[in-house]
């Protein structure tokens, strides 16, 4: 793990951040040999999805000498999370905190970061801004849309009905990037493929997710993926209906031994090990950390037995291109599904492009709408 791939923006300010981080950590390093790191999850640690992916990352650093991990699950996105952070600082002596849910950032984590300037806070998501947010805070995220693009390529090869499907929680940019990447991946194989999307409106709603999956299968979709907190229900329902699935968040292959094609998984161990190593060494922690497949922030599930050699070859080739860096899934001319041009010809947004983080459209070929 080298720091060369850590994409830090606004370099000038990042220098200042480094100094602040040093100042924050130095006294602690002088007193104690170890570092206590707190992880906060919004749901259960074993949800086969978002929270489990983070908990697996946390588990990967538990065995590092000098590191103590404290964890708390099912912490709501209210001032409860402030108190949890504070409790970890005051009662457990934590000096580095990872509140992993999106809604923890504003105002809760920011408030705590201002109150405890000597403690380091890193939030999972794309929100930290060098020009207005505290320097002892920061954010990290992975370009998981690339994984959904590869999912889409495999799905594009495997679909017979030329209809693939996506069960989504809410029409927010992170979800839209995934839907659009999946759709573009499928269309890169065959432009006639359509992607149907249903929004359940909530991050964890088992019966609605099952209903949405069934509804999409009834519409003729034969490959499905999702972006909800726990893909367990979607994957199991799809397997039950005898269609293919692409996973998300974590590896769901055991749930669908026949239909699981591949999946876009987080690999947070990379990020947490990096932060833990730096914290132990007393080095400044980067404020703005991003990475994709090449940086091992995300990974693909091993191909399932059903995946054809052609699909593997295509996905592997694109993956190799992505690993080289600079690969753009979103490039002009690109129209949304109402026919409006959203990216002009000649413009390309690679995974690092900030423009993608405020996506508010569904691309051509997606059947569905943002309410």
């Amino acid at each position, binding site marked *: 793990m080298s720091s060369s791939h850590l994409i830090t923006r606004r370099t000038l300010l990042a220098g200042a951040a480094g100094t602040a981080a040093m100042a924050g950590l130095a006294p602690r390093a002088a007193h104690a040999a170890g570092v206590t790191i707190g992880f906060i999850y919004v749901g259960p640690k074993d*949800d086969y999805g978002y929270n489990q992916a983070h908990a697996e990352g946390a588990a990967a650093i538990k065995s590092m000498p000098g590191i103590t991990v404290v964890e708390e699950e099912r912490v709501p996105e209210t001032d409860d999370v402030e108190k949890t952070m504070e409790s970890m600082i005051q009662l457990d002596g934590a000096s580095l905190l990872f509140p992993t849910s999106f809604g923890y950032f504003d105002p809760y984590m920011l408030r705590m970061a201002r109150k405890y300037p000597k403690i380091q806070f890193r939030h999972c998501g794309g929100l930290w801004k060098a020009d207005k947010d505290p320097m002892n805070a920061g954010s990290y995220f992975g370009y998981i849309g690339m994984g959904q693009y590869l999912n889409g390529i495999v799905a594009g090869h495997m679909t017979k009905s030329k209809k693939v499907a996506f069960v989504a929680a809410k029409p927010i940019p992170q979800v839209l990037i995934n839907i659009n990447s999946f759709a573009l991946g499928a269309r890169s194989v065959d432009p006639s493929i359509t992607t149907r999307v*249903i*929004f359940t*409106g909530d991050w964890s709603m088992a*019966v609605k997710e099952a209903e949405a999956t069934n*509804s999409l299968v009834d519409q003729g979709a034969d490959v499905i993926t999702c972006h909800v907190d726990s893909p367990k229900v979607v994957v*199991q329902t799809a397997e039950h209906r005898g269609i293919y699935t692409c996973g998300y968040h974590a590896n769901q292959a055991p749930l669908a031994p026949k239909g699981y094609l591949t999946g876009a998984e987080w690999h947070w161990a990379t990020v947490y090990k990096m932060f833990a190593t730096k914290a132990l060494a007393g080095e400044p922690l980067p404020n703005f950390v991003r990475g994709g497949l090449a940086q091992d922030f995300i990974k693909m599930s091993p191909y399932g037995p059903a995946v054809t050699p052609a699909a593997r070859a295509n996905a592997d080739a694109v993956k190799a291109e992505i690993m080289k860096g600079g690969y753009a899934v979103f490039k002009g001319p690109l129209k949304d599904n109402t026919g409006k041009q959203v990216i002009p010809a000649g413009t390309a947004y690679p995974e690092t492009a900030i423009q993608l983080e405020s996506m508010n459209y569904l691309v051509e070929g997606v*059947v569905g709408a943002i309410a």
Partner: protein
Amino acid sequence: MSAIETILVAMLAGCLRVSTPFLFVSLGECLTEKSGRINLGNEGALVLGAMVAYAVSYQTGNPWLGVLGGAAAGGALGLLHGGLCTLARVNDVAMGIAIMLAGTGMAFFFGKPYVQPSAPQLPSIPLGFWSDVPRIRSALNVSPLFFLGIAAAFGLYYIFRGTRMGLRIRIVGDSADAARALGLPIERIRLFATGAGSALAGIGGAFLSLSYPGSWNEGLSSGQGLMAVALVVFARWNPLACIGAALLFGAAGALGPSLQTVGITWGYYLFYAAPYVATLVMLIVTVAPGRALAGMPGELSIGR
């Protein structure tokens, strides 16, 4: 298929898939309320039943044993609620909420090891064998628990109408004074009705974990157990009407996703709330001021 047909097929399928837990919980709640007691704890019985059913099915490899386990777990929770409410001055509404918390807590706690494994599922009956249309075939893949639920509804109807036991439950529920005059063991009858009611709720939970969506995790129930209280009012404490009410709630639940598949994407939150609006409208239209709801047991604490 036209959009209308698509929605209709989806709603039919949704009816058959989503309604079963509603049916069991509402029948259970109906039985309990008929004896003059309300049990908001059936949400807890549903979740605990779902977890136990999944665990038993996984451990034994037999999903039907799982259903029995779910019923037993729900029943045990119901007996606890019933037993505590037997004590003088203990409020059944509040105790129900406490039982709901305790039940879900235990289910989440002891269910941790069962989130990851896949348990054997209940088989379904392929009633759509005659059709060539895959979506109709799949829509008519009906769980045997659905028919068990319908049978239970008819059974309860018969018990209330035509048996001594049913008559006793109804008397106890309608007037404790009358029951006392007849020398009926009021508390024992209520205890039995609460336990049996929660056992039915437990079977509803078993359907969630072993049939549809057929999985165990902590987000499995979206409040079906609480909603049953509204559903029973909707059904006017009539077990046969519970079938209709459960089917309607199931269909309304399927409305949101199916509307999106045909391109109506506006306001899905509002469509998801359709069953509640229907209940409210039904109440407003059919209840006359100044008299109790027809069919409502007179001893019910929420009626006094």
